[in-house]
């Protein structure tokens, strides 16, 4: 019996090993190779379904015109882009052309995985001045260019016409200053008894309608300070910041005043302080005005419940305007085998013709190339004043700071902004604390690897 048992033992081992071997054999199958001389270009995107739909149409056309290229579209949903991007960097497998926003472009530049396009640009006779400078600067470092923007959407002032009409307040105009904004915001704010903040019985705990849904909630809120002459960035790369400099404190106090004393804007960074996120008071029709990017146009038009228009961001006391771009663009992996072909494809993808046809017309964003900007003018849908967007492009700038420690500084200082706006911490004290933390968390970035 023992011998028989033994044989069965072996049989079971054999079964297990066979199973494993089959698996290993399956694993060994190689990746498909190229048999022709076509140039394989891997194109990494991080688009939404709607963006992909029109982008692929454009891509089909490019494929037709360039049969020598085998363009492989590698799409990653935005939700997992960070992980994939980092994994590809670590394994040295970045696609030849990769779609990156500014923070990741800057990361790629810092880590030396993006190709310096400066020479290629010169060789190709490509004209970067056709791109809005604010959109381009996100792909620059030390005067070298590492990517070309595809679209750049500035934040503009959205206003709800229905609320303005009901309150009998004049619509905002492109000439507005921030003081006009404050006056209107106060007039449009109501508690549940119908009192405005200027009325004696006003109850700030039960506001049912706000004048404005916006406030500088974190260190990326640069555009809220610049019109008042208080840019917290101390140098162009913005790797030194100060919120406790006198002029920044003054700019900040304007906003604290609006929120804490005028009660004309809500302050609730975790449930819709930002305009355009689900549940924010402007989209809900409970705030008369809000700052947001072009993407909100699509969202508001889809629901169709809000009658609105847009104007440029108001000017500060000295007439200065500022706004920030949300930018998308393409870079090229440093280790690409076909830099020229990759650059040629990149050039086509960011050209005014391509972006106005396949990006602006379907409503995904504003072309970063100046000559394509007119494509956002759309008389058939809201808003009427699309020109405000094009005007704002001129002074828009990239989200800063670019540095490595910026996100960490941001997360570490969010609470300070909250407690200042809630009146728990005096303004000067809070901003000094913010500076201390920023200096601490950005220090590694400045010393650099």
């Amino acid at each position, binding site marked *: 019996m023992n011998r028989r048992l033994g044989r069965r033992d072996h049989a*079971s081992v054999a079964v297990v090993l066979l199973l494993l071997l089959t698996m290993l054999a399956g694993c060994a199958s190689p990746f498909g190779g190229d048999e022709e001389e076509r140039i394989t270009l891997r194109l990494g995107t991080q688009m939404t379904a709607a963006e992909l739909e029109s982008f692929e149409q454009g891509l089909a056309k490019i494929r037709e015109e360039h049969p020598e290229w085998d363009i492989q579209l590698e799409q990653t949903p935005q939700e997992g882009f960070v992980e994939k991007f980092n*994994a590809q960097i670590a394994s040295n497998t970045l696609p030849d052309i990769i779609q990156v926003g500014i923070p990741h472009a800057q990361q790629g530049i810092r880590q030396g995985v993006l190709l310096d396009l400066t020479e290629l640009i010169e060789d190709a006779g490509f004209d970067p001045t056709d791109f809005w400078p604010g959109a381009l600067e996100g792909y620059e470092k030390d005067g070298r260019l590492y990517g070309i923007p595809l679209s750049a959407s500035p934040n503009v002032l959205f206003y709800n016409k229905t609320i303005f009409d009901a309150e009998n307040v004049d619509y905002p105009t492109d000439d507005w200053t921030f003081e006009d904004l404050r006056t209107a915001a106060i007039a449009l704010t109501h508690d549940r008894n119908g009192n405005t903040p200027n009325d004696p019985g006003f109850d700030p705990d039960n506001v049912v309608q706000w004048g404005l849904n916006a406030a500088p909630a974190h260190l990326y809120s640069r555009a809220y300070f610049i019109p008042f002459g208080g840019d917290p960035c101390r140098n162009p790369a913005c790797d030194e910041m100060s919120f406790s400099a006198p002029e920044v404190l003054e700019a900040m106090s304007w906003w604290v005043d609006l929120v804490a004393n005028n009660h004309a804007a809500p302050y609730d960074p975790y449930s819709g302080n930002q305009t355009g996120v689900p549940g924010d008071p402007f989209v809900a*029709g409970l705030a008369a005005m809000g700052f947001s990017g072009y993407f909100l146009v699509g969202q*508001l038009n*889809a*629901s169709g419940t809000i009658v609105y228009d847009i104007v440029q961001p108001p000017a500060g006391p000295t007439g200065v305007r500022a706004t920030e771009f949300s930018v998308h663009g393409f870079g090229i992996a440093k280790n690409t085998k076909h830099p020229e072909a990759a650059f040629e494809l990149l050039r086509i993808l960011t050209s005014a013709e391509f972006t106005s046809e396949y990006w602006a017309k379907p409503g995904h964003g504003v072309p970063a190339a100046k000559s394509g900007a007119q494509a956002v003018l759309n008389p058939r849908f809201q808003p009427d004043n699309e020109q405000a967007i094009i005007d704002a492009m001129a002074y828009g700038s990239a989200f800063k700071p670019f540095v490595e420690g910026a996100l960490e500084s941001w997360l570490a200082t969010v609470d300070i902004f909250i407690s200042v706006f809630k009146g728990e911490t005096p303004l000067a004290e809070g901003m000094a604390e913010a500076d201390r933390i920023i200096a601490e968390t950005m220090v590694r970035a400045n010393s650099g690897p």
Partner: protein
Amino acid sequence: MKQTHAPQPQGTTGAATGAGIRRFSSPRARRSMLHVVERLLVYGVLTFFAFLFLLPLISMLDTAFKPRALVYSFPPTWFSGDVTLDNFRFGWNALPFDRFLLNTLFVTSVSVCGTVLSSSLVGFGFARYHARGAGLLFMVMLATLMIPPTTTLIPRFVLFAKLGWINSYLPLLDPTFFGMPFFIFLFRQFFRSIPRDYFDAAEIDGCSPFGLYWRIALPMARPALVTSALFATIGAWNDFLDPLIFLSTMDKFTLQVGLATFNGAYYSQLHLLMPMALVGIVPVLVVVVVGQRWILSGLMRQVEK
């Protein structure tokens, strides 16, 4: 037939019927009252929890079926009564969902087979045999569950990239054939609640170790088998991070990766995301309904005896 009958409190005609005899059981009324109260209580508690558990699903259903304009209107309108299938139609056509479904089906079925076979085998080893180092290995195995998957993501990607497995299903499927710790542990626990005698007896009758596993352990742990198949199905079907990272081209995407494409950093196409997420639930829901019946068929068998 019988002629006489036991004396009964209320007196009886002596008819030998079930109805007749029931009369000499007076506590019946009280008992059935208790029964009714118990039923009401149990159903009440279950209904309460069912409502809580269904809230998100109701919300999803509501979103999926209402016209696009209402999806984005705030404050949200609940059950406007306006029902449309447009979202399903547009969602289905926005991305190659038929492809995604087929891919997911393939990945799920292969990985479920792999998981259940290999994990039950390993689990049997851990449950049945004493060996030096078994305790330590068991802890090591559990320890692999304790690492957040995002931490090993980069080293794993580097490994699979070196093997040339990126944009193939191998990184998703291959590990399942080497035993998944969660399921190994589950099988170990279930196998350990089978009396040892069954194995000893079978072994004396000349059953090989593999036979013990295949012919004694697996059939006796049928609820565990079905449970783990169920969990493996759900796990593979809903797996997001791994397919997201290891698959690159749309023709390879699974359902969850496809769904995530509706969700952007600035703007989500909720009116398409919700209906397609619901469509994605349907196949697993079928598996769950069928699987649960299988788990519980043990109960029926016991009554049969």
